[in-house]
């Protein structure tokens, strides 16, 4: 079903060319089902929450990819450290580490060999991950700050929907009370007294 407000009034969320508009629509539909927005302001908040969550997912994906792409250099660095004998500074170790790190991604035998080398120092694959994270610290820190900021904005937007609904409900209750109390309502007798009378 086309969202009239979404398409004509509320600005559409721009997506990266690699992102799927259908997936974003599905995400927004899920929020709409959950929040059941009434009126343009609530729709605005649902759109905002969906956009924020979409961006959170984008940054989380980015975080994982950054760590994964640092794996090779992390493994190479780790292997150079563990293969090097005390007092040795040869290039041979670095070449060996580079070859093993390259093969680790494609060759099961190499993977096994790396695991055995690491096990010799009471290390396992988590040591590679730790090194990959260490190498990406500055980027990950920035990403984390942005994620924290987005998460706090998402929670605030959710709170704002509730707050808006509560204040609207209060306003409606006040209006209803005024009508029941008769304040500000033109009474029938008043209306009659204002009517011009024939001489």
């Amino acid at each position: 079903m086309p969202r009239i407000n979404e398409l004509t009034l509320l600005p559409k969320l721009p997506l990266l060319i690699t992102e799927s508009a259908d997936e974003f629509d599905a995400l927004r539909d899920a929020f709409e089902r959950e929040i059941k927005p009434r009126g343009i302001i609530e729709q605005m908040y649902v759109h905002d929450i969906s956009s924020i969550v979409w961006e959170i997912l984008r940054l989380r994906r980015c975080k994982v990819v950054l760590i994964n792409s640092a794996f090779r250099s992390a493994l190479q660095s780790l292997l150079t450290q563990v293969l090097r004998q005390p007092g040795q500074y040869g290039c041979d170790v670095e070449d060996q580490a580079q070859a093993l790190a390259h093969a680790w991604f494609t060759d099961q035998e190499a993977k096994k060999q790396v695991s055995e080398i690491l096990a010799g120092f009471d290390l396992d694959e988590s040591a590679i991950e730790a090194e990959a994270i260490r190498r990406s610290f500055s980027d990950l820190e920035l990403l984390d700050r942005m994620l924290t900021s987005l998460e706090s904005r998402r929670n605030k937007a959710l709170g704002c929907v509730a707050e808006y609904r509560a204040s609207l409900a209060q306003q409606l209750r006040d209006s209803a009370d005024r009508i029941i109390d008769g304040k500000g309502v033109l009474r029938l007798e008043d209306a009659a007294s204002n009517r011009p009378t024939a001489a």
Partner: protein
Amino acid sequence: MASVRQIAANRRNARKSTGPRSGAGKNRSSRNAYRHGLRSSITSTAGFAKQLDNLVREIAGDTKDAILLERARAIAQAELELARVRRVKVALIERASAFGELDPPQAFSSVTQIIRLLNAIDRGRVPSFPEPVDSSATMPSQEPDRSAEAIRRVLPELRKLDRYERRAAAQRDRAVLFYNF
């Protein structure tokens, strides 16, 4: 730190200056305080004016109440500001993904390099120009690695934009809060 005499000399020299004279100079100096344009009003772009009016009308309905209309305008304005910041974010990531960086590659990375080149010319040597680095060649070719790398390269800019986005969202929230009062 400048001495008292230097400060006095600077002031004397500054008084002699009558500012830019050429049209180009005046044009340039008129934009001295301009940084990025994100704080400029959204209505300054003509295309948004109609969108803004439509959104205001949708929020406020058929009311003639000037206060209510003004509050609705504040909500709509902040909402469109938010949309603008989001567009800028995506555009920066896309640009970094296409070119590898936001600024075009420079032949010289520092003034020192230029001075060295000029010295080489003075000494009658034929200088070798450094090859500008092609940043797009250093981008991963596959997704999602390419997008992630593009995001990584524009992270400082995204962080700055995040502040604007938060500010616009806070303005919208305040405007919504006042709308029902």
